[in-house]
């Protein structure tokens, strides 16, 4: 096993995500979430030569929106909420699912068929619609304002999104556990008198470690997809601010600048100012690619073969060369001279 920190795939993904997160925190720390605004564009003589929205340029790499706010700054400020929430969802899912899955695989193998049948129903419910359906009562601002704080809402959203797919992960891990539990080394350990808990700790968990990391990464990517879908349906991370002004209602807004809020209802502007809806979507895409690079790198580093490119020839293992021994004529003796 090579160190994951030496694998280029893992490093690229990790550096991207860590870099974006650090940039986001530093930016917020220095400017206190200030978003630069370029309402009008002036030429050298101070004459107005253009107004917002502006297409991408050197000054604002992702362009500006209708109000003249810089999209790049918005995306940077929003990155920390989105990425950390997705990470939290993944962690909560694994923390809940791994122990239950191990337990299921070891103790309840007889009942597995029924549990699988029950969990199968989750495969027919579109995850996005379920998330919308469950989160709407919590995240849409009711008339008269929220009664919950933003962190409570983010925590509730994370927990609900996490629980939604826990049953499916539990079954996957349970099946893998069952597969490992039938292997010979486990049977051997059992005949030597190992208890079930010891088998889980010493044999099954280590065998499943890579699998668990891969599932974790996939769950994080899936969460990002769900965030983007929820954004499109105007359910934003941490709550949707709705204006109940009867005369001039503002469009629903996100409370922070997180990416799903940036998608919001901008997709209708796709034909006219494509950079506004595309900015958050591309941010999502880049983060997801970074996560999948990390998965690939991790699997390559720990198992020596690739998760996605399975069954290749693989890299030739370097054989440690032994020091060459040249036989010299003096080493040979004739013990018996035949007559």
């Amino acid at each position, binding site marked *: 096993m090579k160190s994951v920190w030496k694998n280029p795939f893992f490093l690229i993904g990790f550096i991207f995500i860590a870099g974006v997160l650090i940039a986001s925190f530093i930016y917020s720390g220095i400017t206190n979430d200030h978003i630069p605004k370029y309402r009008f564009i002036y030429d050298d003589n101070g004459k107005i030569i253009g107004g917002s929205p502006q297409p991408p340029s050197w000054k604002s790499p992702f362009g500006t929106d209708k109000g003249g706010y810089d999209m790049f700054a918005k995306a940077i400020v929003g990155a920390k909420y989105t990425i950390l929430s997705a990470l939290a969802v993944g962690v909560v899912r694994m923390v809940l699912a791994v122990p239950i899955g191990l337990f299921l695989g070891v103790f309840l193998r007889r009942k597995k*068929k*029924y549990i699988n*049948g*029950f*969990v*199968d*129903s*989750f*495969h*027919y*419910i*579109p*995850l*996005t*619609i*379920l998330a*919308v*359906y*469950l989160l*709407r*009562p*919590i995240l849409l601002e*009711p008339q008269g304002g929220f*009664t*919950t704080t933003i962190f409570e809402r983010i925590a*509730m959203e994370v927990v*609900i999104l996490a629980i939604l797919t826990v049953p499916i992960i539990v079954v996957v891990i349970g099946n893998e556990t069952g597969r490992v539990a039938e292997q010979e080394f486990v049977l051997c350990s059992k005949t030597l008198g190992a208890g079930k808990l010891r088998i889980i700790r010493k044999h099954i968990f280590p065998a499943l470690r890579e699998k668990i990391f891969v599932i974790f990464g996939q769950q994080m*990517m899936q969460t*990002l*997809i*769900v965030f*983007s*879908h929820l954004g*499109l*349906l105007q359910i934003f991370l941490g709550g949707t601010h709705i204006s109940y002004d009867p005369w001039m209602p503002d469009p629903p807004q996100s409370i922070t600048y997180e990416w799903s809020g940036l*998608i919001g209802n901008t*997709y209708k502007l*796709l*034909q006219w100012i*494509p950079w506004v*809806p*595309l900015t958050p*979507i*591309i941010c*999502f*895409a880049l983060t*997801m*690619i970074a*996560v*999948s690079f990390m998965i*690939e790198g991790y699997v390559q580093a720990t198992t020596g073969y690739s998760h*996605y*490119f*399975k*069954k*290749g*020839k693989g890299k030739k293992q370097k054989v440690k060369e032994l020091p060459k021994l040249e036989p010299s004529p003096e080493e040979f003796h004739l013990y018996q001279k035949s007559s």
Partner: protein
Amino acid sequence: MRKVLDVAIRFVLSCTGIILIGALPPFLAGLQRKTLDWGIYWASLKEIVYSIVHVQDVTYMYLQTEKPLFPFMLEPVMYSLSVMLGAFVLACTAALLMTIITILFNYRVRRFIKIIFYIFESIPDILIIFIAQLSVIFIFQKSGILLMDIAALDKQKIYLLPIVCLSILPTVQLFRLSMIVFEEELNKDYVLLARSIGLKKLFIVIVHIFRNAVISVFFQSKKTVWFMLSNLFILEYLFNMGGVTLFMMESLNPKIFTITLIAFFIPIFIFYTVGEWLIKRKITGGESIS
């Protein structure tokens, strides 16, 4: 007989799961006031079960008029199912064709193709839909030819672009899946034997490997179908299609939500059960496949 019973138990369990989930939102709405009332959950459970038993009487509000749910629901369900089936068939065909073509190349080229698809797989579906819509508009602006409709108006039904959009990511997923299965088969002994008696690689891939590999791909495609369901939902929203998911969104009410889900679940369940049964009968002569 035992098998029929098994399928029945699975069906009932899955339906129970859907009903248990369908009753959740009124219960979770209590989180706003930081209370969780099990009485509300129990009441909405009872209501859902009652409305499933008396499905003829369920009504929904459409433009301030009450309409009976039952005959009206079938049309959007059929529309969504046909789009999904179209996309699934297209994705399977495309993925298998690409796999067969890719597998004929040598290892180096194969690896290169796989890396490209690997990056492609982690692109969010919204981006693909956006790009598809933008490119159709771009072609229209440049050449005046409208390749396909990019959104539905009122009662109009569009098929081509949604099916193409919906099938892109599943194609990539199925391609990866079948690539793994095909390459595993390629290393088996019967392929070596077939090559040693002088059969061409293309012939072996199509006649021998394909038959064995397609079973595994079928069994593992359930995750892809799940993924497609979420995808379908966003697609219907962005293309303004009058499909089942939009219908669910318009009336976010536990009864209708659950009934629509079950109506959508039954065809997919039948598809997989029959498919599994046929494959088990035809190909292995009754032996079980794990």
